């Protein structure tokens, strides 16, 4: 028994030394989630100054209440961080063409009057073709506004009817009593309609983060850090699976080198050889996970539930090692393993929400997500890191990953054993 353990430890030590001597592949895989998440966070978050603003021009040819309402909507407290609004009389299109604005919203003449008379009105939005995301934001917000205004014209028919005579006469100041009557009527209608008219259509994770931070003593994370932490768990899980695959592929490399066959000429069995590769993979994946978690903790400026993190990490490492064993056990050579591994991991990462949050995915993708181990890993670490979850919160994730990992590991060991025997005799 001691002799066999000695052989396995010699094999593991040799593999660790080889990784240390040629670390490029491993280092690149580990750098990937940091660079990817970091770049996205910096691009969209900036150095703690918030997301880049949409430079929106409004050409107000109406000059009435509705025009004011729309302008107010873009300068309101919730929208102000995202919009840099400028009201212009003319020349908006030229500004778009010279690239000094993201979008131009044209409010037509008599917009207010048309709306009160329930006549169709058209808002024109001109987008800057040189930009992609920011004009899209302006378009989406304008669409919501148009919907709300259209609905409001019907819902607020009665109180707005009070205003109509004054609008037709172009009265500049309304009597206080009229304003109070209208305001009360609108308030009542809005209050009744609120659950139906203003459901939370768009949910931003940054909002929930900020809310969580309010109750804690920890300093509020910057927008950059928030974006980084939102993206990082998924990409890190992807990187760990890729790393496991890369490390397990060493078995196929040794097959090609002839060292696999040579080792089997020695006093060791096939099982020892496979065990040593599994242990090396698990060890390096574990150390990498600790490193990535430490970086995430440093960015978040807070700790996570240690029992939850350790248990989830162990389960994830089992899944990482098991998947790598199956892929490399199936493949006949390195090239085949690379192709199979890349395709499987990319599909599982996308369907598991590692790259793009599942909330932004179609329902069909959301339905298949639980079949991907990436989903359980990504969601588990998000729960620990972003929602400050405890061990109890990630028990399902641990259970699924550990079970899947064990099953894959046993199956993978069987395949690898077959592959090693074939490689030894090749």
């Amino acid at each position, binding site marked *: 028994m001691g*002799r066999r353990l000695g052989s396995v430890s*010699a094999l593991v*030590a040799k593999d660790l030394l080889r990784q240390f001597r040629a670390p490029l592949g491993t280092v690149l895989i580990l750098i990937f989630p940091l660079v990817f998440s970091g770049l996205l966070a910096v691009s969209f978050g900036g150095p703690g100054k918030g997301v880049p603003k949409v430079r929106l021009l409004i050409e107000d040819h109406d000059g009435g209440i509705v025009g004011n309402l729309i302008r107010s909507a873009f300068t309101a407290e919730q929208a102000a961080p995202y919009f840099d609004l400028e009201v212009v009389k003319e020349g908006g299109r030229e500004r778009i063409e010279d690239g000094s604005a993201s979008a131009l919203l044209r409010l037509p003449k008599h917009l207010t009057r048309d709306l009160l008379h329930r006549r169709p009105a058209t808002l024109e939005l001109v987008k800057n073709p040189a930009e992609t995301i920011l004009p899209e934001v302006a378009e989406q917000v304008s669409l919501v506004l148009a919907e709300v205004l259209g609905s409001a014209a019907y819902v607020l028919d009665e109180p707005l009817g009070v205003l109509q005579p004054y609008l037709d006469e172009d009265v500049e100041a309304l009597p206080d009593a009229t304003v109070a009557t209208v305001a009360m009527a609108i308030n009542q209608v809005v209050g009744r309609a609120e659950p139906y008219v203003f459901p939370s259509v768009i949910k931003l994770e940054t909002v929930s983060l900020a809310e969580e931070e309010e109750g804690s003593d920890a300093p509020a994370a910057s927008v950059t850090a928030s974006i980084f932490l939102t993206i990082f768990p998924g990409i890190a899980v992807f990187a760990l699976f890729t790393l496991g695959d890369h490390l397990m592929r060493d078995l196929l490399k040794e097959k090609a*080198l*002839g060292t696999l*066959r040579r080792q089997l*000429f020695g006093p060791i069995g096939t099982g020892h050889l496979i065990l040593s590769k599994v242990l090396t993979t698990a060890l390096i994946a574990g150390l990498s996970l600790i490193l990535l978690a430490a970086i995430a903790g440093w960015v978040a400026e807070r700790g996570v539930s240690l029992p939850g993190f350790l248990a989830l990490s162990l389960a994830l490492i089992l899944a990482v090692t098991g998947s790598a064993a199956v892929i490399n056990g199936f493949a006949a050579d390195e090239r085949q393993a690379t192709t199979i591994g890349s395709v499987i991991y990319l599909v599982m990462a996308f369907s598991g929400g590692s790259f793009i949050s599942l909330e932004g995915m179609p329902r069909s993708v959301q339905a298949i997500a639980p079949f991907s181990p990436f989903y359980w890993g990504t969601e588990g670490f998000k729960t620990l890191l972003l929602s400050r979850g405890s061990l109890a919160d990630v028990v399902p994730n641990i259970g699924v990953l550990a079970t899947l990992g064990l099953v894959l590991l046993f199956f993978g060991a069987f395949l690898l054993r077959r592959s090693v025997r074939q490689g*030894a005799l090749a």
Partner: protein
Amino acid sequence: MIQVENLSKRFGDIRAVDGISFRVEKGEIYGLLGPNGAGKTTTMSMMTGLLEPDEGRVRFRSLDVAADPIAFRQQLGVVPQEIALYEDLTAQENLRFWGSLYGLGGKELKRAVQEVLEMVGLSGRSLEPVKRFSGGMKRRLNLSLGLVHKPQAVLLDEPTVGIDPQARVNILEVVRQVADAGTTVVYTTHYLEEAEGLCDRLGIMDHGQILAEGTLDELRAMVGEEETVSLYGTFSPEQAKLRMESIPGVHLIKVEPERLVLGTGESGRSAIDLLQKVSDLTVERISIQPPSLNGLFLKLTGRELRD
């Protein structure tokens, strides 16, 4: 002592090894000589217990290899045909790993590594990564990995393929040194000069069978004084066969449309007689092989080792 008894292995319809038997004593170098594809490497794989034979068995002292392959491999050193090294590691690190795999450790491992490095002439380069080594140096290191744990038996599978003469001499010297220290050595090669110069006994192998076996003198005696003459040209096989049978002291070994292989009775004289008697045949080239192992191989198989 290694004893191979009636060893056979088939791969589909191909009989790679066909009931071979031989015995190698302690301190003896036994050479398996044969062309590529003769079944030498398959025999080696079965001898290590890595490949299960269809029939037969291998014994090392009282140990049945099939019954306890790990125990056998613990006492065995194998030098494979391909250079199987970790190129990112140094020579010393390679040796330390292989030594530790066989249970060596501490000072014993350090001493064993140093000794074997000196033996193969690499002690001055031991701390360099193997990827910087020349082909000959890699071959020498490849050999040393099979010797670092001081095995009682060594199997060497064509350990000198593709190297310069100087490195070859070094390797052959090391093998002789190891055998002189009492190690049982099985050495496969398709180089005649190596087999003749190194091996105490030889098995000539082709198509999975041992065709002849013995010491160099015993094998030479099998050839006798007979020369092997190959005539190259364009022949009618039937006509050539009739013609040759009518010449005294000549016997036909192989008949092909473009080559006739003949054995001639007495050295020198009969070849000249033969040439005079076949002057009417369209002979473009003639090759005379004096009595040698190649001649024996030609006599046994009808083809040369390099064919």
